[in-house]
């Protein structure tokens, strides 16, 4: 009891300090976690049917159509209402869902044939057939499409139904990443075929008011700003969900969610790092953690003369004790990163150049690069001081602290750092094309299941893409262009491994860490599987021990 009161009081002070700083964006939440699953195993009986599970969330969905959303709140709902041909399991392997088995891929890698399970029913009772799959994927390749995901299907030429339960995808060129693309929820053709593709995104009768899929839960109602209710799909093809209802309850921010968790009003929330200490004190809640499919980094602007020389970048990384940073700022809830690929990925390459904490080596590298100590102790070269700013988005305390700690580490080797913070929207505007107005930036990448580095590292992504560090390397470009043509995963992993090693050696980023992510779950909830990327994974197996 004393502990609870203490936690409450300290939380109030935290809140009073940070309440004004509630901005942020899609990239902003910093979810991190502990070394292992802190959930206690307790003896439980057999799964029970029934109950209404309440999930607390601060994000309200935008559109309940799996082809059009770009936010995780919408994805959480569509993952429950719809089912795709395949799904990514918790080990990031592709598993058949609507499809019966793994695809049959032709010798040349151009034809992918999926066989479907029979007897899968949409929520309105109609059976899902190959025609529905063809309809869904034709939306992506239709010339009028407005789907933000259409880029995934650039190589797709044709989708056809071979018979009622067989679909064949034909590609223009082999695409190893195609396997991870067929996870989009299947839409019911019979309800949507009369809507022109250009208008499908705005078809609110389906997308907002009555989405119909084949997933484990049916849509019931959505009250803006308050809640969204789903009910069990009795006919779900993997078996009826144990839960009768799933309700998403919307609250303004994680502070409000923690209070709702404490009073038992919600069963589930994605717990941000800053709240872990508080949530750990609740007796009725388990904290689950797993490595997130993401890395946090300090990105350097290679177009600035200061960062042109890779020895300077390597020296900076040598000068920062990232293990210490993980222990202090992240309270141990992360692992030090060395390369732009997650250890969760099959393409992870551990054999990359590593720049461990070594102040002497850092000084040596800087001296080699021609930097000499100036009168004020800051390094100089040709009259220019080695001084720059590190930018992050305001409201994100972790990133602010990383800026400050970096400032202290780099002062040791004679580099002056000025940490700065900006409001999220203004921050993105400043670091993105065409402005590129930054020296260093604290950011993170949430990674896709497929490890292709193209979107972030290819030099043609500088002018208008996400390669805002302006990283250029011909070999990385070549691998980024060619790796998806290689169908053999081991061969492709070797190729990608080379690219990751090159990037790690050149240090366009100082790779900081792979964070853990936490889910706070009421002890009543059983059968939960923690997926590194999908929040609503196998929810039909969850049940309430009442």
């Amino acid at each position: 009891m004393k502990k609870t009161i203490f936690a409450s009081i300290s939380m109030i002070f935290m809140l009073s300090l940070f309440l004004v700083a509630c901005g942020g964006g899609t990239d902003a939440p910093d979810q991190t976690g502990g070394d292992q699953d802190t959930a206690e195993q307790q003896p439980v009986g057999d799964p029970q049917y029934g109950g209404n599970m309440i999930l607390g969330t601060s994000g309200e969905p935008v559109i309940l159509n799996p082809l059009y959303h770009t936010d995780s709140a919408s994805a959480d709902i569509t993952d429950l209402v719809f089912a795709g041909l395949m799904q990514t399991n918790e080990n990031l392997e592709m598993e058949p869902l609507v499809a019966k088995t793994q695809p049959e891929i032709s010798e040349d890698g151009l034809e992918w044939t999926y066989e479907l399970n029979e007897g899968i029913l949409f929520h309105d009772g109609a059976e899902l057939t190959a025609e529905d799959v063809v309809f869904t994927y034709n939306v992506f390749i239709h010339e009028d499409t407005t789907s933000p995901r259409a880029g995934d299907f650039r190589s797709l030429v044709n989708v056809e139904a071979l018979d009622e339960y067989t679909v064949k995808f034909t590609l223009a060129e082999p695409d190893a990443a195609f396997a991870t693309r067929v996870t989009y929820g299947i839409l019911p053709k019979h309800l949507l075929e009369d809507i022109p593709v250009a208008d499908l995104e705005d078809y609110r009768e389906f997308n907002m008011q009555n989405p119909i899929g084949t997933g484990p839960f049916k849509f019931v109602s959505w009250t803006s700003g308050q809640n969204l209710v789903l009910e069990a799909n009795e006919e779900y093809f993997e078996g009826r969900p144990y839960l009768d209802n799933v309700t998403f309850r919307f609250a303004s921010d994680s502070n409000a969610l923690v209070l709702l968790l404490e009073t038992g009003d919600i069963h589930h929330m994605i717990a941000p790092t800053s709240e872990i200490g508080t949530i750990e004190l609740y007796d009725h809640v388990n904290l689950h953690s797993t490595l997130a499919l993401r890395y946090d980094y300090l990105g350097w602007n290679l177009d600035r003369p200061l960062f042109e020389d890779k020895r300077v970048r390597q020296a900076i990384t040598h000068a920062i004790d990232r293990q210490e940073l993980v222990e202090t700022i992240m309270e141990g809830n992360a692992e030090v990163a060395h390369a732009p690929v997650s250890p969760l990925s099959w393409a992870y390459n551990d054999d990359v150049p590593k720049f461990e904490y070594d102040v002497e080596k850092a000084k040596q590298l800087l001296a080699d690069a021609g930097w000499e100590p100036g009168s004020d102790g800051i390094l100089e070269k040709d009259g220019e001081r080695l001084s720059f700013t590190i930018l992050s988005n305001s409201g994100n305390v972790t990133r602010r602290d990383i800026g400050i700690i970096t400032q202290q580490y780099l002062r040791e080797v004679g580099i002056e750092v000025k940490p700065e913070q900006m409001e999220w929207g203004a921050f993105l505007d400043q670091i993105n094309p065409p402005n590129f107005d930054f020296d260093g930036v604290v950011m993170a990448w949430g990674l896709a299941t497929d490890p292709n580095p193209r979107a972030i590292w290819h030099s043609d992504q500088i002018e208008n893409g996400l390669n805002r560090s302006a990283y250029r390397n011909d070999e990385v470009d070549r691998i980024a262009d060619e790796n998806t043509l290689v169908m053999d995963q081991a061969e492709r992993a070797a190729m990608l491994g080379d690219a990751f090693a090159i990037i790690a050696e050149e240090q366009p980023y100082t790779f900081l860490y792979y964070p853990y992510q936490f889910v706070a779950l009421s002890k009543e909830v059983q059968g939960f599987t923690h997926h590194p990327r999908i929040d609503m994974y196998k929810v039909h197996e969850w049940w309430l021990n009442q």
Partner: protein
Amino acid sequence: MTTYIIRRLIMMIPILFGISVISFAIMYAAPGKPTVMDLDPDISVEAREAQMERLGLNDPPHIQYINWMSNVVKGDFGTSFTKKQPVRDMIADRLPNTLILMIFSTILAIIVAIPFGVLSATKQYSKLDYGVTMTSFLGLATPNFWLGLMLIMLFSVQLGWTPVGGVSTLGADFSLLDRLHHLILPAIVLATADMAGLTRYTRSSMLEVVKQDYIRTARAKGFRESTVIYKHGLRNGLIPIITIFGLMLPTFIGGSVIVEQLFSWPGIGKLFIDATFERDYPVIMAITMFGAVLTVIGNLIADILYAVLDPRIEY
């Protein structure tokens, strides 16, 4: 009087037009673009550009303003960039919640503030007066997010008497009692600052009035003290307070932002904050214009009420 009102209403048009131009310009000049908020490496550059084109964000600012204005004149406030819903629906969904909260808290503020203000004035320098004065300064000085958190910790978390947030119990049928149960804490928090301010205004206004000759005359006529104060005094004392009400009307939108955030109250304030962070231009503009209209109308109502309450004022 009627011509006065009509004249004022016509004058609103250029004022609102000016406000819309300035707000649009400021909003547009603020750094940050609506669509770069998506940082998903899975979304291609082409898709992002196609979206910019569809939303008309590639047009020069003055064309965007003209397009927006010509739709607004037709009563169409556009579609939210991020929520993909008609802005009018979004506001219509949220406005009742904000109004309920504001009206309830304003009534609460008035019920408490005016009697205490009057008492404090008529019994000037008494213990009651000092008590009321102290309490109102305390109320003015307390940040309402702090007060809100304290009340939540005490009544919702420790005692469990009130819900932590929201407008109604999840999944329950509509019930007035349930609504009031959810309303009470945010309304108290919101009323506190208004209450404190109003008490002070009422007190100083009444202090002026009770020194007037007509009050002495009323007393001399032998009226009961309560009649003197409440019938002759208060009616005159309220006139300056009416102005304050007129000016409070626009804060119906902005004033509740923090409380709405704190209590997860799905109102306009929260919508506005989210829209600002996401650079959701249509929503920002619609709410700004709504606030502008309320400000102008609030002023007009205050002026009209002057004339109603004070026969000496004529337009």
